[in-house]
């Protein structure tokens, strides 16, 4: 994979180069880039398809040739049998989901990942040891076989558990991606049928109408006023007209092909299916996403780092003591068994499972806050995010055109653009407004879909393009039932908008029964409209349009345009009843009505307004040290305006151009250091080298990329990643999916997002709301902190588990802690408490600090390891040894007797071993005492782990600042620890296989002073950290 990726990227660079300009006239080049990318991609990934795919020439063929090629008939369609055959041949018309790793591979990966290898080695060593023992002595005990089996079981069970957790989180997605099945209207057997779109085959004749999603790649055979929205394919939001003429050699540019998953906005069309499923253009782009390698998540890197540390410690101590044991004349076999013990003691068996649980708990919490996490590890990634590359449309904005400003009576009025604006508060008393509102209402072809009376206006579905929809909703809010008004003002003639004359006109009978005049209303590009006018309405009165009013018009027009808003001009004319009697027949082709000397009424500007929650969220991101970069396909002016209004470009920062304008100097003369913000267009980006892009990314804190193509998105993401940043990318279209995949964390929009985007993403925002990301960041950071605590907690007792072995080997005391007992700590008493730490609240405002540095701020850093191992761990060992020595001394073996007792102690035939008082012990009596010792040591560790758990609640604050009882789960953890220990000691006391015995109650309290000491010591540590921040103490003791 690593070998292949560079090729793909270089291809994309070429693809980007192909795009000469992104201005309107050259939009087509964009397709070419995309197309060549597709082809190149196929060459890399699907070599076998290359020859088959390139010859898409259906757009050049005549209808007859098409019929022949696909053995179909344009009128009667395919026969059902033909269709069934083709369906069997080509498979269903659906994008195949990205190739999943086979379940068994996933499962096996869990079996060998992390510490599993070490434990397998341990298990195998156990069996080997038994093999050697058995070959020497047929009656040797089966202890080693049991231990090996237990170790293998531990690996398998934790593996199954991790696998199950993974599978569960994947299932959330599976249910999610089950979308409502799409329907298609198809002609088969000369009949129109509605079938699921999945069953379409090549050669099918389908009919589509405004509002439908195009169900496959189709060659249009007939079209009427058909416009499609190709934004999911190209990121281009302008509606594209479609007809049945062949207009371009390139299949992506010709007008007679409609693409799978794009939407037909208006009109109707009939087409022949030419490609289905993965063979569609969108299918190829979707596969581009699967071509981008999946980067390892930051938390996975951290855990790997941690595993390396622990495994390193385990192996080096293990080998060191193996050598020591051998040179101390222990038998090799015994040394191997010591080695196993050391490995088992060092490996926190339960930790990885705990981490998984912790992550999935957070994932659940985030899902409640509308962040659906697909990949568990992505939970934390969001927390370490340092750059968010946010899409504009739909994420930062509401993704609907909304009327933002009005200009009439020489005055600019502001309209309410919040999500649920119910009332417009601008001054509506003027007579001009009455006229303007009439034009807005009447000169509009958009309509509400019927049957939505109960739906709030802003949420109703509208048939029509974005601007008309905005105007319709606006007038519905201000004036009430628009359809009724239109009915009363009967439309007699209409010229729809087209790009050559850039206006829209309609002529109506008025609802005033006394007024027999026709009303002609017109809207369009403001300068075109103004040309046609000779008067202007001010305060309801027509006035001649003079120089000063025209200037006022232009000022207002420029001002609104400068806000990145789409401005429309409105004018009207009452046609005199004499010239145009009621029976007059208007002919829109002949234009038998006046087209000049109209009356200009006003301007109205629209924008896709930012979501109301976004500015606040951006501020939070900024204070959290996260850079928010806007990457959009939209115009630079619009992009900049939105960036300013949401705070991506803050109020007091300027771009180079702004400074130049303010100081009235040339752009080149501006000192670039002065500019904090920059707007980079796709064109500029195309000419930039990697270094230049890096410079832009590092030197400006506020960046907006406008007019970018999907490929450039990928380049920007890579650029950010070169800065060692953890990059989050938000997006919704299919075109975003490569960038989503490339990003450290891809965030797809749950409502607006396409399936491909959701598939490529690691996280789905269910409410499409940028603000949800901030919550995610907070949760992610918290989980990182809490994982640190969990790991510190878990690592601590490893020393207490390891020391018994070392002392056993070197000093020769009877083994203080058995291997099985260690497993009961790691997988028994310690599990719930370490999960409980995940519920810990943040110590300070985590949203006020910088995101962690991917390479410097490690999950497990040196102070953490040293403090856990050499400070608390050691104290814990001493405490546990105290309990151990107490038990032995009170039973008759004083510490001095124990030294070097090991060899005699473990001989099976020595049944009269003398203790410190001259009493003699049989082997079984000693064994029982040894188990009591295990239990005592176990209880000693458990009691001190309670103290450890409490101190790990905070890393810096005093426990009393944090509140001892705020996290109730901690107490559940403590209770679970005690209950499990009670059950093991008293409930299972008679089951000697587990090596637990009944322990006298007083031994439970022997380690309590040490537990208190641990608490006090840690409070002192935290106190000094708080008192002397940045000091030597802080550097060495703060983890």
């Amino acid at each position, binding site marked *: 994979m*690593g070998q292949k*990726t*560079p090729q793909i990227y270089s291809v994309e660079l070429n693809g980007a180069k192909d795009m000469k300009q992104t201005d309107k006239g050259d939009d087509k080049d964009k397709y070419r880039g995309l197309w060549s990318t597709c082809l190149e991609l196929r060459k890399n990934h699907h070599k076998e398809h290359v020859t088959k795919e390139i010859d898409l020439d259906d757009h050049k063929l005549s209808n007859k040739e098409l019929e022949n090629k696909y053995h179909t008939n344009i009128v009667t369609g395919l026969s059902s049998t033909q269709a069934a055959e083709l369906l069997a041949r080509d498979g269903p018309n659906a994008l195949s989901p990205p190739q999943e790793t086979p379940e068994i591979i996933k499962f096996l990966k869990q079996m060998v990942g992390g510490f599993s290898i070490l434990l397998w080695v341990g298990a195998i060593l156990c069996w080997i040891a038994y093999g050697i023992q058995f070959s020497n002595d047929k009656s040797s005990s089966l202890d080693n076989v049991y231990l090996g089996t237990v170790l293998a079981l531990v690996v398998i069970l934790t593996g199954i558990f991790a696998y199950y957790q993974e599978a569960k989180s994947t299932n959330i997605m599976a249910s999610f991606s089950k979308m409502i099945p799409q329907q298609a209207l198809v002609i088969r057997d000369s009949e129109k049928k509605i079938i699921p779109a999945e069953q379409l085959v090549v050669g099918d004749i389908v009919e589509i109408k405004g509002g439908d999603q195009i169900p496959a790649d189709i060659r249009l055979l007939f079209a009427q006023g058909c416009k499609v929205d190709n934004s999911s394919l190209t990121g281009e939001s302008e509606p594209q007209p479609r007809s049945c003429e062949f207009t371009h050699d390139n299949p992506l540019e010709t007008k007679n092909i409609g693409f799978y998953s794009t939407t037909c906005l208006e009109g109707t069309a009939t087409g022949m299916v030419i490609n289905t499923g993965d063979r569609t253009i969108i299918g190829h782009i979707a596969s581009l996403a699967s071509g981008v390698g999946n*980067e390892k998540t930051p938390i996975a890197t951290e855990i790997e780092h941690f595993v390396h540390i622990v495994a390193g410690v385990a192996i080096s101590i293990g080998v060191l003591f193996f050598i020591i044991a051998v040179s101390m004349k222990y038998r090799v076999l015994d040394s191997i068994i010591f080695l196993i013990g050391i490995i088992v003691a060092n490996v926190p068996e339960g930790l990885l499972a705990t981490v998984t649980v912790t992550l999935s708990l957070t994932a659940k919490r985030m899902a409640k806050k509308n962040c659906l996490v697909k990949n568990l590890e992505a939970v934390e990634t969001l927390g370490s995010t340092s750059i968010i590359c946010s899409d504009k449309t739909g994420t930062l904005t509401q993704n609907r055109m909304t009327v933002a400003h009005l200009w009439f009576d020489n005055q600019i009025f502001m309209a309410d653009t919040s999500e649920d604006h119910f009332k417009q508060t601008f001054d509506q008393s003027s007579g001009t407004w009455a006229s303007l509102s009439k034009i807005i209402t009447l000169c509009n072809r958009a309509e509400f879909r019927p049957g939505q009376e109960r739906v709030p206006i802003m949420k109703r579905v509208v048939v029509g393009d974005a601007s008309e929809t905005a105007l319709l909703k606006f007038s519905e809010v201000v004036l009430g039932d628009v359809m009724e008004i239109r009915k009363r003002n009967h439309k007699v003639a209409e010229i729809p908008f087209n790009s050559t004359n850039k206006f829209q006109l309609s002529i109506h009978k008025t609802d005033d029964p006394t007024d027999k005049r026709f009303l002609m209303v017109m809207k369009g590009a403001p300068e075109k409209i103004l040309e046609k006018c000779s008067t202007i309405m001010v305060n309801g009165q027509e006035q001649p349009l003079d120089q000063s009013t025209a200037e006022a018009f232009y000022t207002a027009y420029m001002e609104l345009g400068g806000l990145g808003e789409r401005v429309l001009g409105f004018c009207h004319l009452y046609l005199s009843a004499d010239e145009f009697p009621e029976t007059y027949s208007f002919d829109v082709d002949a234009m038998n009505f006046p087209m000049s000397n109209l009356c200009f009424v006003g301007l109205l500007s629209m924008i896709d307004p930012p979501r109301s929650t976004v500015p606040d969220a951006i501020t939070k991101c900024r204070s959290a040290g996260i850079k928010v970069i806007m990457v959009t396909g939209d115009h630079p002016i619009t992009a900049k305006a939105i960036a300013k209004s949401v705070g991506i470009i803050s109020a007091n920062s300027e771009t180079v151009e702004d400074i130049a304008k303010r100081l009235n100097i040339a752009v080149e003369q501006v000192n670039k250091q002065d500019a904090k913000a920059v707007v980079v267009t796709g064109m500029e980006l195309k000419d930039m080298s990697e270094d230049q892009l890096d410079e832009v990314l590092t030197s400006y804190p506020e960046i907006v990329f406008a007019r970018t193509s999907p490929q450039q998105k990928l380049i920007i993401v890579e650029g950010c990643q070169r800065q060692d940043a953890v990059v989050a990318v938000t997006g919704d279209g299919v075109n975003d999916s490569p960038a989503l995949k490339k990003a450290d964390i891809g965030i797809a929009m749950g409502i607006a997002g396409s399936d491909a985007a959701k598939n490529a993403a690691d996280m789905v925002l269910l409410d499409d709301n940028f603000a949800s990301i901030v919550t995610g960041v907070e949760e992610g950071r918290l989980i990182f902190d809490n994982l640190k605590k969990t790991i510190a907690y878990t690592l601590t007792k490893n020393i207490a588990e390891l020391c018994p072995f070392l002392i056993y080997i070197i000093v020769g005391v009877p083994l203080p802690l058995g291997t099985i007992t260690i497993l009961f700590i790691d997988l028994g008493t310690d599990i719930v408490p370490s999960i409980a730490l995940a519920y810990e609240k943040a110590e300070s405002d985590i949203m006020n600090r910088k995101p962690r540095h991917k390479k410097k701020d490690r999950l497990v850093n040196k102070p953490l390891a040293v403090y856990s191992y*050499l*400070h608390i761990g*050691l*104290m814990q060992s*001493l405490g546990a*040894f*105290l309990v151990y*020595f*107490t038990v032995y*001394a*009170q*039973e*008759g073996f*004083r*510490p001095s007797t124990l030294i070097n007792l090991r060899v005699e102690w473990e001989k*099976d*035939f020595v*049944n*009269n071993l*003398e*203790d*410190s*008082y*001259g*009493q*003699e*012990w*049989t*082997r*079984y*009596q000693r064994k*029982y*005492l040894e188990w009591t010792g295990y239990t005592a040591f176990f209880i000693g560790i458990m009691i001190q782990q309670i103290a450890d758990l409490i101190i790990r609640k905070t890393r810096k604050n005093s426990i009393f600042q944090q509140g001892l009882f705020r996290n109730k789960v901690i107490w559940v953890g403590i209770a679970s620890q005690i209950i499990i220990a009670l059950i093991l000691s008293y409930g299972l006391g008679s089951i*000697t296989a587990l090596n637990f015995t009944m322990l*006298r109650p007083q031994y439970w309290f*022997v380690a309590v*002073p*040490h537990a208190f*000491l641990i608490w006090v010591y840690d409070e002192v540590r935290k106190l000094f950290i708080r008192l002397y921040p940045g000091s*030597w103490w802080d550097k*060495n003791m703060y983890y």
Partner: protein
Amino acid sequence: MVTQKEKKSCGQVVEEWKEFVWNPRTHQFMGRTGTSWAFILLFYFVFYGFLTAMFTLTMWVMLQTVSDHTPKYQDRLATPGLMIRPKTENLDVVVNVSDAESWGQHVQKLNKFLEPYNDSVQAQKNDVCRPGRYYEQPDNGVLNYPKRACQFNRTQLGDCSGLGDPTHYGYSTGQPCVFIKMNRVINFYAGANQSMNVTCVGKREEDAENLGSFVMFPAHGNIDLMYFPYYGKKFHVNYTQPLVAVKFLNVTPNVEVNVECRINAVNIATDDERDKFAGRVAFKLRINKT
């Protein structure tokens, strides 16, 4: 692409290590400056010093709870175990009659073991006690008053005493003596005031046949109550453990015989499932004759 970037050449790695060990720019040795090392060492010196002191203190306090005289708890020793002499690997008593070296080591061990039982030593150190009753020695107000022990004379072992014995405890003739002793347990009144004795049997039927006849010393394998109770090694210095010697007279040669001896006493259970040596001892006896 990523992997290529991150891979370092071998030389670089060495260079980095060198710099880690001694960084001439920052004067750092192993990542720390001299002052930092000094601080660290001082800190650990103090910290570990404190921990050692703390541990020593708690251990001392703990040892105060333990008396020199009797262990605090004896729950594990409710049933004393039995053991044999000569003490051999895996309790296999193998005697190659023709090979003097094979049994020579047993004999040597036994000689050494029985030395303290010599009548002269016993007479010099220990009291003659009244048989059939416990030899109790209460402190009588004097704390931890030293205790006297009862005589167990080597001559009591009869044919197995090895005194003036040309057969070396019978090992040279294939009629070996095995000595049974019971584990010492402080303040344990074995037999609960009733007489007790040791008996031996072959473990299985064929063992019983192969075992043949044997004689015991003292007669009937009796253990006298006067050797109890035991007061602990510190105050019961010359305590002599009572023995029972078993002389196997005609063991079937060249066969491994499983022998089990147990003590018959009212207060000693000999049927513990898990502890095979509680109140009993099992050993293997093999006489190899050519």
